[in-house]
């Protein structure tokens, strides 16, 4: 199987393998991205975040269903937390998406966070590029159930949807800190339950305090389970998209994304390089000096950094 050609042709198995490569930091993944990057930049990327159990996966499945029915190709990346102890994970988002899993034009990939803390996997943005190259018009990225610090999705998506559920009033207060700033639209899911109106009013009043200009994030009541209001979410995303296009913000975002793509690769390289350095026997002696307080971590880091740099 020629994976690169397969990805460009939209072949499921090739796409899946390519994502495995980038996820594992396999050099073939890097090679592949080089080859297909030219074909990216066409997809519209939507991120979905929000508290655990708010219904993100259910909503993603509904959105994908609607978009696919309109003839779009939809790629989904669903991130779940990896265990910090074993490094393993049970990737459960997909269970909620079984109904669309087999729909033509829908591809779903589950990812563990593998130690990353921002709500995504470090390579999620590269996986997005692969889906983009494979011709998906829409890419939906679901983060782990987030509290407030998991805001990485904002760096991956053009439109960020924050999903909440009623009865999580305390959470809303707590979420003011991080998540409120990144939402381009807010979904109060589980509107079939009590308290949706109150939650919506609460969010709206918080939003009114913000100094945002240009785009005012709408607050939508949805029941993903009963499939009501989902079309309005798509409308709102489309509106946000036109806003981004018309205001020129989309181009700004694209520059930012490209920069972040490079940064992500650089970071991974640096981590790899410095780790290799750290494991060298020569460094062990230096490390012992740090342990015995004969040296300090900055001094050692400086020397490792220089060594790494010089080597490449």
């Amino acid at each position, binding site marked *: 199987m020629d994976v690169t050609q397969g990805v460009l042709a939209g072949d499921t198995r090739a796409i899946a393998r390519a994502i495995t490569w980038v996820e594992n*930091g396999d050099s073939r993944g890097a090679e592949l991205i080089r080859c297909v990057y030219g074909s990216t930049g066409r997809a519209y990327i939507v991120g979905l975040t929000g508290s655990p159990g708010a219904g993100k996966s259910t909503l993603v499945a509904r959105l994908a269903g609607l978009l696919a029915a309109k003839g779009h190709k939809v790629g989904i990346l669903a991130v779940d937390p990896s265990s910090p102890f074993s490094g393993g994970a049970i990737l459960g988002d997909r269970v909620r998406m079984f109904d669309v899993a087999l729909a033509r034009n829908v591809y779903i990939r589950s990812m563990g966070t593998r130690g990353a803390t921002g709500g995504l996997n470090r390579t999620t943005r590269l996986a997005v590029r692969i889906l983009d190259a494979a011709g998906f018009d829409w890419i939906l990225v679901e983060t782990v159930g987030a509290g407030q610090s998991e805001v990485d999705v904002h760096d991956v998506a053009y439109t960020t949807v924050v999903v909440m559920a009623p009865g999580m009033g305390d959470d809303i207060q707590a979420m003011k800190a991080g998540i409120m700033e990144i939402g381009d639209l807010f979904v109060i899911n589980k509107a079939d339950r009590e308290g949706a109106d109150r939650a919506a009013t609460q969010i709206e009043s918080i939003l009114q305090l913000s100094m945002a200009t240009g785009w005012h994030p709408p607050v939508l009541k949805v029941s993903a389970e009963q499939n009501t209001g989902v079309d309005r979410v798509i409308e709102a995303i489309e509106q946000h998209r036109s806003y981004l296009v018309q205001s020129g913000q989309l181009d700004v975002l694209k520059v930012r994304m490209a920069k972040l793509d490079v940064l992500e690769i650089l970071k991974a390289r640096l981590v790899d390089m410095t780790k290799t350095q750290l494991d060298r026997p020569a460094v062990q002696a230096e490390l012992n000096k740090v342990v015995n307080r004969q040296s300090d971590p900055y001094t050692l880091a400086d020397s490792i950094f220089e060594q790494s740099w010089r080597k490449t």
Partner: protein
Amino acid sequence: MEQKIRVLVAKPGLDGHDRGAKVLARAFMDAGMEVIYTGIRRTPEQIAEVAVQEDVDVVALSCLSGAHNTLFPRVVDLLRQKGANDMLVMGGGVIPEEDVPFLKEHGISEVFGPGTPLATIVEYIKTHVTREA
């Protein structure tokens, strides 16, 4: 970055016995693997498609309702049709010993029955996942 073994734990057919499948899923996680669990009552078509989309290394089929001879080979066939020849497909549950040769002929690499230590199963996966990094 290190490679992780990805496993699909799947329940084909109408069988609702999920205690074993859930125990396995958790044990695999504790052994550092990434696990996708399908939930009960899945068709071979669904299972094969998910396995390919998720690019798993292992498909772990659990069946306690006696329908294994119909369902397991079908999953293997569908995987092959999709060109996924490099996945380890394992089976387990209440499966009479006399059915094991038939299942192995049809692409099931090994079958594990009641009372098998989880460590044995984890070890089997670790030694049999052969896909190059």
